[in-house]
């Protein structure tokens, strides 16, 4: 009850400041543009905005970053619907039915549905943040260093497993390279310089924001300019109408997709794109007309858009309670929060008990502002889509450079950002996923210090892993994840499965 009261007080406080309302709408609109423009991503948007907002006060910065995140995840649906080119990976599944539906019923109708579905998805995700965060925090307070080490390892392994489009081992390799990159600099226990090559600029380690901007920004710039991508002229939209009747008829799909979105968002390192596809597949499975998927079904569009926006709330849960980002944009949010002296993790709720409620209030406002912007400003977004990539990508390059420099006022950050960007570009060309690399850089310090602290307490023994239920569960999942990718284990598992099912059939 007290939390509910605080929630409404937070909303009232935010709305009483005209600056915050202005920042909210501007950031959401900017987010929609970032999401809509192919080549620009929610992660890059949040990264560039971090550099612009780091001198602002905490509330304004948080409003701006979360509004950008929400807007960008939704914005990807514009190009998916209007041009059959997803603006972000999160909207790839939306294009499957969004584009044919727009051709048949008009883009205004589809955008009306996606706008409302995205807003509902964000709000349901926000509800889960409020409901689950205190429970997870309570559990996390019991965690020892072994659990933290295993959590970090789990984040890297699962992200590597689920984001690889080619071989799973490429995801693990990317994660381990990221983990190695996090060891550069003086270690936090003995202050010994590791892999610094005598360069004092490397003593404090790699600047996370510069790494993120390089890894997510530079490959996009090179790819877009290299191919000189030319988009077709999008259809002009007259009116965007929300269809509440259709939404009500698809209530079970909305609830199912939201749960999928929150669940996938909560898994470290994987984000909205996977949520969209899983939700699309599940909606098809449960549909009365699965054969019509791909021909422009409202149900399909609603399922993908609800789930990719619900993913935002899901990604915020491990970020706020454990300090482990649930999705690539959440990785950037983690960096931004730390710049504002907010350290996400179980201590956050103790030091600042109202913080999660404030985040929930901002998420609610962001989803409302996204809905208003989506319904009223859609036609302007389509006009911005006409700006060629070859004109705005060099500007993004300039923003990446000043953004990487501005956070530490070090030109050396640029010397890091560009090589990391080029390395990421080549890794992407070789189909290595980038998310595990970045999550490795982010979770590396936690993995390193937790492992050594844990071993220090246990005098070098790893027995405590098997004595504590959470660490045993995490350890088992990690081992199973790794074994599941080994061919002989796969065939053994298949044989066991076949044996069990044949015995089951015989007994019946």
């Amino acid at each position, binding site marked *: 009850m007290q939390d509910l009261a605080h929630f409404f007080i937070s909303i009232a406080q935010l709305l009483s400041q005209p600056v915050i309302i202005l920042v909210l709408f501007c950031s959401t609109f900017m987010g929609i543009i970032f999401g809509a423009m192919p080549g620009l991503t929610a992660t890059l948007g949040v990264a560039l905005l971090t550099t612009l907002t780091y001198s602002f006060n905490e509330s304004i910065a948080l409003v701006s970053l979360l509004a950008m995140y929400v807007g960008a995840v939704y914005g990807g649906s514009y190009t998916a619907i209007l041009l059959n080119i997803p603006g972000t990976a999160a909207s790839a599944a939306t294009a499957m039915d969004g584009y044919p539906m727009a051709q048949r019923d008009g883009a205004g109708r589809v955008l009306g549905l996606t706008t409302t579905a995205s807003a509902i998805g964000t709000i349901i995700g926000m509800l889960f943040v409020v409901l689950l965060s205190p429970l997870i925090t309570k559990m996390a307070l019991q965690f020892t260093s072994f659990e933290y080490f295993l959590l970090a390892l789990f984040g890297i392994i699962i992200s590597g497993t689920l984001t690889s489009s080619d071989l799973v081992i490429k995801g693990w390799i990317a994660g381990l390279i990221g983990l190695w990159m996090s060891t550069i600099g003086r270690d936090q226990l003995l202050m010994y310089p590791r892999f610094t090559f005598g360069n004092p600029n490397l003593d404090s380690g790699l600047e996370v924001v510069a790494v993120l901007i390089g890894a997510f920004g530079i490959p996009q710039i*090179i790819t877009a300019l290299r191919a000189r991508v030319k988009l077709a002229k999008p259809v002009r939209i007259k009116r965007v109408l929300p269809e509440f009747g259709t939404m009500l008829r698809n209530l079970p799909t909305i609830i199912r997709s939201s749960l999928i979105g929150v669940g996938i968002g909560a898994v470290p390192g994987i984000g909205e794109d996977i949520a969209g596809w899983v939700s699309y597949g599940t909606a098809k499975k449960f549909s009365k007309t699965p054969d019509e998927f791909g021909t422009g079904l409202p149900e399909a569009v609603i399922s993908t858009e609800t789930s990719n926006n619900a993913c935002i709330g899901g990604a915020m849960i491990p970020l706020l309670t454990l300090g482990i980002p649930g999705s690539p944009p959440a990785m950037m949010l983690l960096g931004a929060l730390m710049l504002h002296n907010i350290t996400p993790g179980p201590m956050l709720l103790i030091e600042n008990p109202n913080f999660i409620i404030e985040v929930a209030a901002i998420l609610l406002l962001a989803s409302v502002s996204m809905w208003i912007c989506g319904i009223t400003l859609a036609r302007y977004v389509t006009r911005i889509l006409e700006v060629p990539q070859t004109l705005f990508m060099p500007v993004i390059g300039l923003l990446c450079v000043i953004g990487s420099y501005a956070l530490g006022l070090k030109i050396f950050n640029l010397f890091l950002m560009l090589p990391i960007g080029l390395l990421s570009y080549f890794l992407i060309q070789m189909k290595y996923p980038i998310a595990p690399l970045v999550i490795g850089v982010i979770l590396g310090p936690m993995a390193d210090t937790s492992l050594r602290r844990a071993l220090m307490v246990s005098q070098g023994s790893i027995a405590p892993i098997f004595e504590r239920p959470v660490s045993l569960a995490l350890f088992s999942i990690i081992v199973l994840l790794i074994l599941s990718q080994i061919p002989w284990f796969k065939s053994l598992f298949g044989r066991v499965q076949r044996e069990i099912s044949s015995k089951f059939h015989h007994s019946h």
Partner: protein
Amino acid sequence: MGEQAKVVARHRELYQLRWMDAISGVLLLAFCVWEIYSATQMPMTESYAGVANVWYVSPALLPLAIGVLLIPLAIMLITRAMRDLGAMKSIYPFIKYQRMHIGEQLGFMSCVFALICYVFLLIPNFDFILVSVLFLLYLIGGFYYCTDVQHWSWFKRTLILAVALTILALIFPSLLSQSPHNDYSDILVLVIIIAGLINLPKAEDPAQSRRKKRGLWVVFLVPVLVGTIFKYMLLVPLPIEGLWVHKVSDTVFYTLFSSKHGNIMDGVSEEDAAALNDAF
């Protein structure tokens, strides 16, 4: 594209990918050897900075673990690549290695060249706004304004200019990395910008002419706008503040805006002002 052509294209892509996997696997192995060797040089059990060390608190623990885990992964990557390449042996003649399209090659080289020059050569040495104008002029000029054919000659001419600049910098090392920064070296950047503008290929049709006008607006406005926001609103000093910042934006900003709040030097005598000048 016919069904057969699609299959060939898919196999060609896989073939090239597996070759790259094999090469990256070998590079990864070499990296692991170096990484493990470096980790073994870190304090393991001996004392460091007066603190007695044990193996499980050693800073080498995680790097060693990473190196040891990466080795089997690199071997798996190479084996998988070799197995797939072996399986594709019978179709080698149909899936000959295909190089990147010449336009894409040029696009890649041009873009990487611009980024490297901008980050490593221009930003640390010259006025940020001027070098940003130069960076945008090169990229927007080459990719947005020029046609594919024009882009090639634009790239060649810029390459010649970059070589000339490097030779100049070698002959007159004082042009680079001066502390405090000398505004006069920025004149060189200004000259290159003007040369670039003169060098822009002629518009072939009205549409290209419109692109030129639009592109130039972006080239000149964006760096000034971004520089102004960062320097005067977010109070972030730019990497190098030279000719433009000192002579133009500071003058405009402090004359138009700061004068309303009174000059900081008001009431300071001429002697004190001179002393302050000497001090800084």
